[in-house]
Structure formats: C-alpha cells, structure tokens
C-alpha cells in the first residue's frame, strides 16, 4: 500500500481546472439552439394579480414565448411546490406556486417568464409584460405580524402565524422560582443571505428520442430537485436527469427547490428547445432564500456560584412569505441554546410568523448562530453580574467529558434524542484560551487604553448538530481502463468532496489519487441521493466511500487470488495493481481484473466469481453528530467612526477525525468570515412596506480581505463513535459562534462607556449611535 492519504494535507484535485478557467458552471454549459429566460417578478410585497398582458412583450423581435401560471403543465399549474419538511407543529404549511396565481406575497415572487433568443432581449421583454396589480397591505416586521389587527401577509391566513412549538425539559418554572438570581435579556439576530458568488442558474433540455429531460441547476440537492420536478411534471423519475455541475458556493440557499427549477424545465419541454436562465444579483437579493431574523426574550436562572439552574423564554422567527424548508431554523435554534452547558431545566416557546419578505431557509449555521448568540450573551451577563471572568463562568457550567454521552433532554432536528457522543468542551475552551493569550489580555487592553485605544476580547462556545441523515450513497467501480469510478449523490459547492472521497477510496482499494474518477451531483450517477446541507457529507458520503471501498477491495483481492492461484491473504493492492506476495510477485492491473470480472459472453463463471468490481454503499448514521468549539476574538473599536478591526481570531474546533487538514482549515476560516459578515456587515434592509432596499453588493456589504484576519486554528480531534471514519462535519462551525464572540468583544472594548449590545450585526452606525446615547462623546470631551 502506498502513502496513506486519509488525514494528509492533500492538495485538492478540483483546483487545476478551476484555476485555468476550465470549470463548468451551469451558465458555462453550452446548449445548441438554446433560448434564454427572464422572470417577471412582483414589484410589490403583497398584491392581487388582476390581469397579465403579455402582448407588448410578445411583439418584440426575438421573443419566443411568455408563460404565466396558466401556461404551465399540470400539476405545476395549480399545485403549490411540494412541502419538503413536515412538522406537526406547523399550523399553516405554505409553499409557493411555481408562477404566482392570483396573489403575490413578496417582492421578487415570480409571476411570469419570458423566453427569447438571448438574455438581453428576454430582459427587455420582461419589462414589457404588463401586470395589473391590486396592491394589498404588507407586513414587514414579524413583531408586527403577530399583533392583532396586523395586515395579513397572505389574504387567506388569518393571524400570520405558521407554527407554535414549545421545546422543554425539566421543571423550569420551579427552577426559576427557587433561583437566587434571574437575569432577563432581549436579543435580535438579523437576516442576511448565503450570497454565494455564483447566483442561481438553471438550464434544461428535453431530448425527444429518449424522452429524457436533463436539467442543470446550481443546486446543493439534485436528487431532491429531480423528485420535486417529477412530482410537478408528472414524469417518471427516470425520465429526468438533474445535474449540479461545478457550483459556485452554496451556503444553504441552494438547498431548497425553487420555482425557477420547475419553470425552466417546463418551458423547455413545452417549446422543444433548450432554455437557460442565469439569475442576476439583484434577482438573487429578491428571490433567493435568506435567514436569521429571530427575536428572543429569554431569562437565565443561576445559583450563588453562577451555575445555571434553568433557561426559559420565547423565540419569534420571521419565516418570510413561505416556508420551503419548514420550521427547521427556529427548531434548530431552540434545541441548540443549551449548547455545551449543563442546563438542568429549559423551555423555549417558539412562534413562527409569516411576513411579506423573501422566504427563509437555512443559511450556513441554520438557527445555530442565533442560539449560540443567546446562550453566550446570557453567560456574559452572568459573568458581569457576578464580577467573574467570562471564561470562568463558562468553565463552571461546561459539560464535563466524563458526563458523555450527554443527553440534553430534547429531540433534535433529526427526530432523535439530542445526545452528545464525545467531545471535550473544557479542553476546547482551554486550548483556545491558551492560543489566544486570553489570560493576559487585560494587560494589552490596559496599555491600549492608556493610548486612547479601545481593545476588547470576546469568547463563545458552541455545540453544533451536524451530519444529518438519512443517508448518502457512494458507488465504487473499477473500470476496464484501470481507473476507479466513485459516484455519489453528495454534491460539491467548494467543500472539496472530490478530494476527500478520493483520499478515502484510494486508501481502501490501493490506487493512486489521480486514478480516481469522480461523478457527483448527477442523478444519473447513483439512484438515491440527498445532497449538501447540515455539514453532513463527510459523515454520510465519507462513510459510504469507506464501506464501498472496503467491499470492492475484497472483490479485487478475491478475483486476483483466484486468477493468480494464491490465497487471498497473499495478495497486496497498491498503485492500481493486485500483487501476489510470493514467487516472482505476479501481478494483475485493476484494468485487467475489471475485464476478468466481466467474464466472457456465454462462458460460466467459476465458483465464487462474481460480476463486476463494484459496490454501492448507503451509510446511514444512527443519529446526528455534534461538533463543538470555542472562538476567541480580540477587537479594536474606533469609538469615533464605529469601525471594528479584528486584531486576532482564535478557533479551537472539534469536528472529529480530520480527512484533510487543508480542507478543514479552509472550511473553518471561510465559516468565520461568514460569521464576521453576520456580526458586523450584512444587513438585508426592508422598508416598512417590505420593499427590499439592499439589492447590490454596494448596499449589502460582504466582508473583504481587509476585514477578515487569518485565524489561529487549533484542531481537537475527538473521533466520532457514530460512523466508521470518526468524522463529524466542518462546514458551519466557523460561522456559528462568531457573532456572539465578536459582539462580546466589542462590548468589552467599550466597557468604559457601559454600553450593551443585544443584536447583530453591529454596523458602525449602530455602534456610534449607542455610544452617543450613552453619553460617550461627552465623556471623551
């Protein structure tokens, strides 16, 4: 066996093509004879559609068709997009129509689609489609939405409440009644977007001879998309092939199935021509899902030592106009709050409000950044009230390693009890504290204050449910040319799955990394698939790759032993060959073995011989996995501009066993950058009529290279007992505690002014306004 790839800092196999401009993203797929689509979208947050006049658009040269809801095939014409995530707590399940019928409920909802010879003409024509709207009152803020007498976000939903759900365990009221100290807080986390650099894109082609509808989509979940499209078109699953080619970032919003993914294929079918749609960035702001608007009223009860007795409160979640991913984000937020701490009793009453804003679905973190913000800010509050160091309060409350496996007392989003298996939370915090030089920060802070500079430090712990089920499959097949095909329903939006899975398979079957051929994100590659979300692919696809690799290894060894006439125990596999250990080391290449495994037409196999060197494994984890970590951030705040500089960012992270440290480093660092955006920059602004006001990257700010420090990363590897690789998932942990840590650090920096922050993002404007209200500028003279 050659060099072990698993655990090595292997350079990514994905990179050369992407670096040479040879990536293949959806808009790069050239389809002969293709037409181009542009959607007509609602300019109103809430309106009745009275009439649509497509005639002026159709008169424009180059326009081939204008489709409204009535032109779509059944059941897409009249049925809503199927609901992906059921939950008994959902009172009103509302998904949108592929094209709106009668009523539009957010700015950007698709009303019609124009198909033309090119994108420019399609856009010209879309502006000519005359839609007569009867504008209805809209509701923009979820706090207003649940008030009695509020405008209805949908004319047929009475109270704008989609779901009410209570998460609880223990006797929380008794705990509070007996507690010597109770502290209450109100928190708000604001919504933003995934903002992948590649917007959404869909291309579709119907090949009449084979009656196959091929759809390319910039999606995280092609298998799921195919299923939805089959439901909406009435086609057999096998008559649809969905491909997610190179995808330019996902971060959650490319996981749900979108109206455009239904409409473009329907139009291609109807016109008998390939049709492409490439979303522009403004459209992305208007119609790609967003997340994070959550309001919390919470209280923590603690004993005389600052040990937690209970946490209780309410959560109000703004789901936007529809709920394509159910109530997952408030659900996850509610069960993530206890986190790494011993919380003996707990209750969170969640209300999910419908508003006239873009629908929400998970964005990197999915409810967890909010939950961690709540719990960590409560810990900061306890520290302040007791005059204790923030790390010390946490230390007193962390779950100890000997308490593992630790049952929190709630049911997680996977439907199974929330049980942490492994992880050493005190060690994680201690590692971060040491690396960040936390213990002598007060000296640095004091020196800076003497110079009129305001340094602060913040820390946050988190536990993150990852590796959600139900499964992901991998087929490993040795090809007659000696290459090893790995096919999977896992998808790649930049996470390096091709490299990671190749490492696993190469080790198992003894081939070179560059002999692995990968097919992913293609429903034709493997019959069942789930896709990318919830930091799940290393757990499921990784484990399936291991199991399939092991099975194929056994088949190769058996066939080589049979053919070479030696016992199986005498066969080694290396560099794509099976080699007998004895004699003059006779050998067979994988290519030769693959041919032998196909036999000769008409000739019976020998006893024990089996067709093909291939195996498909579908690993299913028994429950979710739980990562954990600690972030410590040191900031400098310019009290006059409100500008925040992140001086130092330290992460201790336990995502289980690491397949490729290069990739995990990148995932964590990138996740932190997203968290920095949520903490300081990203502000999806709507006016009181739910009109979005930030629809360019000049208005909605993403962190740039000067905003994001290179993090100091410490990996703690506690193997996960729930899968054969020991992995947990690393895609989101970087994002989750960042707003909590950063806001804590800003508050610490501004301690001389006694200001408090209970929300994110903290823009410069917000910081200056808070300082002004606190009289800071008078204090500074």
């Amino acid at each position, binding site marked *: 066996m050659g060099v072990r790839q698993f655990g090595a800092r292997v*350079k*990514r196999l*994905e*990179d*050369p093509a*992407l*670096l*040479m*401009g*040879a*990536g*293949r*993203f959806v*808009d*790069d797929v*050239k389809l002969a004879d293709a037409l181009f689509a542009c959607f007509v979208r609602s300019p109103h947050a809430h309106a009745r559609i009275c009439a649509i006049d497509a005639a002026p658009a159709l008169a424009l040269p180059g326009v081939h068709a204008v489709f409204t809801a009535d032109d779509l095939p059944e059941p897409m014409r009249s049925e809503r997009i199927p609901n992906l995530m059921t939950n008994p707590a959902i009172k009103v399940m509302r998904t949108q129509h592929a094209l709106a019928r009668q009523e539009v409920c957010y700015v950007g909802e698709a009303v019609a689609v124009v198909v033309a010879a090119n994108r*420019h003409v399609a856009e010209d024509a879309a502006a000519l489609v005359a839609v007569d709207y009867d504008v209805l009152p809209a509701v923009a803020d979820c706090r207003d939405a649940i008030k009695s007498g509020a405008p209805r976000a949908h004319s047929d939903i009475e109270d704008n409440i989609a779901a009410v759900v209570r998460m609880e365990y223990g006797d929380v009221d008794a705990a509070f009644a007996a507690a010597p100290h109770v502290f209450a807080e109100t928190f708000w986390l604001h919504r933003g977007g*995934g*903002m*992948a*650099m*590649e*917007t959404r894109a869909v291309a579709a082609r119907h090949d009449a001879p084979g009656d196959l509808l091929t759809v390319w989509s910039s999606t995280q979940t092609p298998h799921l998309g195919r299923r939805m499209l089959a439901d909406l078109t009435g086609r057999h699953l096998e008559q649809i092939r969905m491909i997610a080619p*190179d*995808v*330019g*970032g*996902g*971060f959650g919003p490319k996981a749900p199935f979108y109206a455009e993914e239904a409409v473009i294929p329907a139009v291609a079918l109807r016109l008998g021509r390939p049709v492409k749609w*490439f979303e*522009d*960035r*403004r459209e992305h702001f208007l119609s790609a899902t967003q997340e994070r608007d959550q309001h919390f009223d919470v209280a923590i009860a603690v004993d005389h030592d600052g040990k937690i007795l209970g946490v209780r409160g309410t959560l109000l979640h703004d789901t936007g106009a529809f709920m394509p991913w159910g109530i997952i984000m408030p659900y996850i937020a509610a069960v993530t709050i206890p986190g790494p701490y011993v919380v003996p009793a707990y209750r969170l009453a969640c209300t999910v409000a419908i508003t006239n804003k873009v629908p929400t679905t998970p964005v990197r973190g999915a409810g967890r950044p909010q939950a961690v913000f709540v719990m960590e800010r409560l810990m900061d509050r306890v520290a302040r009230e007791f005059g204790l160091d923030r790390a010390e309060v946490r230390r007193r409350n962390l779950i100890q390693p000997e308490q593992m496996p630790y049952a929190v007392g709630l049911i997680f989003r996977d439907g199974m009890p929330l049980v942490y298996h492994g992880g050493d939370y005190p060690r994680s915090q201690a590692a971060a504290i040491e690396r960040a030089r936390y213990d002598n920060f007060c000296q640095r802070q004091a020196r800076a204050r003497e110079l009129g500079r305001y340094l602060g430090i913040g820390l946050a712990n988190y536990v993150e449910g990852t590796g959600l089920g139900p499964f992901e499959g991998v087929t490993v097949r040795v090809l007659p040319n000696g290459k090893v095909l790995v096919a999977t329903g896992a998808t790649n*939006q*930049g*996470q*390096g799955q091709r490299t990671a899975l190749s490492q696993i398979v190469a080790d198992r079957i003894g081939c070179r990394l560059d002999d692995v051929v990968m097919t992913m994100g293609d429903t034709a590659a493997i019959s069942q698939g789930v896709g990318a979300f919830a930091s799940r692919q290393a757990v499921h696809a990784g484990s399936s790759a291991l199991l399939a690799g092991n099975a194929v290894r056994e088949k190769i060894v058996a066939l080589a032993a049979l053919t070479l006439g030696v016992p199986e125990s005498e066969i080694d596999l290396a560099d794509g060959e099976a080699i007998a250990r004895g004699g003059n080391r006779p050998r067979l290449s994988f290519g030769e073995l693959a041919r032998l495994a196909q036999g000769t037409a008409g000739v019976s196999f020998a006893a024990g011989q089996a067709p093909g060197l291939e195996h498909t494994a579908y690993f299913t984890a028994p429950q979710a996995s739980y990562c954990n970590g600690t972030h410590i951030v040191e900031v400098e705040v310019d009290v006059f501009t409100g500008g925040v500089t992140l001086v130092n960012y330290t992460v201790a992270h336990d995502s289980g066993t690491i397949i490729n440290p*290069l*990739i995990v*480093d*990148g995932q964590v*660092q*990138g*996740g*932190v*950058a*997203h968290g920095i955006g949520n903490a300081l920059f990203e502000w999806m602004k709507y006016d009181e009529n739910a009109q979005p006001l930030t629809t*360019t*990257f*000049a208005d909605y700010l*993403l962190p*740039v*290279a*000067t905003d*994001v420090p*290179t*993090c100091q990363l410490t990996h703690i590897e506690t193997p996960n007992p729930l899968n054969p690789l020991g992995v947990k998932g690393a895609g989101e942990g*970087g994002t989750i505690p960042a707003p909590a840590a950063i806001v804590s650090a800003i508050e610490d920096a501004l301690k001389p002014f006694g200001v408090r922050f209970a929300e994110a993002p903290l823009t410069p404007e917000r910081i200056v306004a808070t300082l002004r209200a606190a009289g800071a500028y008078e204090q500074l003279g």
Partner: protein
Amino acid sequence: MSHHAIALNVNGKSYERTVEARITLADFLRDALGLTGTHLGCEHGVCGACTVLVDGHTARACLMFAVQANGREVTTVEGLAADGMLNPLQQAFQDNHGLQCGFCTPGMLMTLTEFLRDHRDPSEADVRAALTGNLCRCTGYAGIVAAALDAARRLRQEG
C-alpha cells in the same frame, strides 16, 4: 440596437467580430468567444469575479462594453497557464488552498497578476488592500493572501 465591427487580441489570439453596442466585454468573452473562465458574480462592478486585463490593466469586464475593447489586448484567466501547466500564481493558489468553489478565482488571479507584476515584494497588508475589490464567500481570504505572498516569493526566485 446598433452593431459594430471590432478587432481585438485575447490571450494572444486575434479576433474580428461584429457586436451589438450593449454587449459587455464579459458577455462577449463568454458567449462570442466561448471563454467561460471569466465569471459574472454581480454584474454591477463590485464583486470582481469578472476581472480581466485590458492592455495590462485590470478592468471589470461586466462594466466595459465589448466595443470599448476594440484594438486592445485582453488577457483572461484562460491566458495564464502555458501548455496546460499552472503558472506560479495558479500553483500557489492550489498549494495554499486559495480557492474553494472557484467562482471568484479567475478575478482573484487577474487582480493578483497585475498586482504582483507591479509589486515584487508586497507585505500581507499590501496584498489584502489589493484584494479589496474582489469578493470571496468561501475562503475567508486566508488561503488567497497566503497564495499571493507565496507566489511573490516564487516570482522573485524566478527573477
């Protein structure tokens, strides 16, 4: 819509085409020449994914019309590697994990191609400042900054 004949050089190759006045350089490169390495991330000049070199200077291909490239030399990401071999900057990106999804990467590479040509021994702060016109959502920039500094070292060694 008026049409115009243009002649330009892209990655060392001459092209003569007739284009509609409103076609951007980015759309022209992607659709007319099939050079799909130049990506469109925002189409309003902020994200920098479409950055190309025009007569050696970085330009947003989404904010420039194809007709404005008439008579000019354009270099795109496809023009960086010689004979299928990654150039030192591209190799440094792979070695330092300077890319994840790869969508912003062409713009990053073009910005840094100009920057490293003009700055042989940049500091980390210089590199970060140079990159502020290019957004990346995946990497958190650490790998890109490391790659740029590594490439600068390699280029100095090459002389």
